[in-house]
């Protein structure tokens, strides 16, 4: 579904991603793990189109999207969430989600009709809110939500664009165990409809959810395989997993 071939990015002298080759198959949860600074978020930026690739090719659903703009990629069914919560804080939860629904349903170069009268947008937004567990909070301003709820909205915004592939950048960042469990079950439900590329530090979640895992270190992919293969890989253990899994 998503194919990366030799994708690279350098910032000045720093190589953030170095000839990354990666395949995400339709229907899978593919985890991308690696130590801080491995280039995971940069890679997400390149896949989503926020950052241009210096070299390499990105294919999505059989077409080359290397040069496609970010909004064209969203139209094609590729959405992302952010590691650092990025929501519309002065909008209500429902307005946040309706805005994301609006992006992929009809033209937004519409200047006359009140958006509030578009029941279909808000119905769909309500459904997304229910899916991410924010049914009770739809009229709250996003800024007033608790951290875990903001993270749920963060993921909800990505899902509301109806992606075929969603790139989740550390959805569980800063969450307590209860909130994490809720997020894990959300991703578990979402995977039935949407392919997931998951960047996550919570190894518990990764090994529970992932069909396949790719490990990045210093901008390079050092291994890709099933959770068992990754667990057994000596290089991965040495470079990253270390004691965490040996224990």
């Amino acid at each position, binding site marked *: 579904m998503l194919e990366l071939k030799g994708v690279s990015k350098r910032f000045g002298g720093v190589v953030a991603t170095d000839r990354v080759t990666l395949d995400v198959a339709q229907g899978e949860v593919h985890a991308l793990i690696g130590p801080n600074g491995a280039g995971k978020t940069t890679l997400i930026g390149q896949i989503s189109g*926020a950052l241009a690739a210096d070299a390499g090719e990105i294919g999505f659903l059989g077409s080359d999207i290397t040069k496609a703009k970010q909004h064209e990629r969203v139209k094609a069914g590729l959405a992302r969430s952010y590691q650092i919560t990025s929501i519309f804080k*002065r909008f209500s939860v429902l307005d946040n989600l309706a805005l994301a629904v609006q992006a992929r349903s009809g033209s*937004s170069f519409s200047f006359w009709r009140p958006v509030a009268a578009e029941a279909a947008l808000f119905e769909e937004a309500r459904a997304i809110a229910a899916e991410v567990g924010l049914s009770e909070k739809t009229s709250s301003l996003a800024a007033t939500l608790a951290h875990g709820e903001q993270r749920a909205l963060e993921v909800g915004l990505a899902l509301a664009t109806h992606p075929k592939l969603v790139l989740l950048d550390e959805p569980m960042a800063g969450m307590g165990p209860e909130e994490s469990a809720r997020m894990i079950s959300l991703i578990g439900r979402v995977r039935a409809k949407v392919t997931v590329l998951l960047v996550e530090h919570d190894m518990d979640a990764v090994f529970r959810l992932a069909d396949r895992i790719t490990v990045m270190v210093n901008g390079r992919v050092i291994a890709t395989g099933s959770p068992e293969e990754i667990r057994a890989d000596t290089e991965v253990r040495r470079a990253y997993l270390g004691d965490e899994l040996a224990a």
Partner: protein
Amino acid sequence: MKPAIVLALLACLFPLAMQAMDQDFYISFATRVLIYAMAAASLNLVLGYGGMVSFGHAAFFGAGAYIVGILAVEGVSSAWLAWPAAVGVAALAALAIGAVSLRTRGVYFIMITLAFAQMMYYVFVSLKAYGGDDGVALPGRSSGFGVDLRGDLAWYYLVLALLGGVLYLLHRLVHSRFGRVIEAIRENETRAAAIGYPVYRYKLLCFVISGAIAGLAGALIANQSVYVSPSLLHWIQSGTLMIMVILGGVGRFWGGPLGAVLLLTLEETLSGTQMLGPYSMHWQLAVGAILLAVVLFAPQGIAGLIARRRGA
């Protein structure tokens, strides 16, 4: 829209009351206020709703005025020709300036819009055929609409009707899909792009619509004074419009019009000798103090203050 009806009624009755009291001068003053209300409302669309701090809005205002002025001097006095031309030229100027400026952000955007406006200012200063520095007087007001626009009363009501039309259009616009996207871009441009909006196009179109409305306001101010000069494009004019928006309420629907009423009324009362006596020449000091107080104690402007009072 209840307060809108009250305001509209007051605006309709105002000149009749002034006439009854033999204070005809205030009809002309009120017309000027209405025109600036339109210009400030157009600035509030980009500044308040779109989050684009344009410091060159006078360029579109002045361009609209000059188009009407130049056409009038050349013998084209029909409002049906001159005013759409003014709006069109202002929109084109906004398209060109916006296309370049909107590639920058923050302080750079402020500076580049200012620079473009000052460039246009010097273009009109150098137009010797149309008075250069001194500007040029129009042979008369535009003709059209089946009424004699030389009469202050007819002119007032025409301007009021146009302002009403523009405000209605803006009200529809900011509550439409497009308006939501514009506000979303102001709130979080990165995320707006990530959920699939080509933000540059939205910002540019918003900038052009705003410029076009400022152009219409410019066409009206040229008719109001029957005179145009480069000072209409000067950066101080851009600053004045910005002060109106800040006083009235950035991103508040009534912010622009309220700010225009407030600032021009302050200017009118404080610069006269009745209020401040011999100190009236320093009236700008008083306006500055009031602006400071608003920014400190009512950062959402007068419109924000009223909204809070009404619990909205």
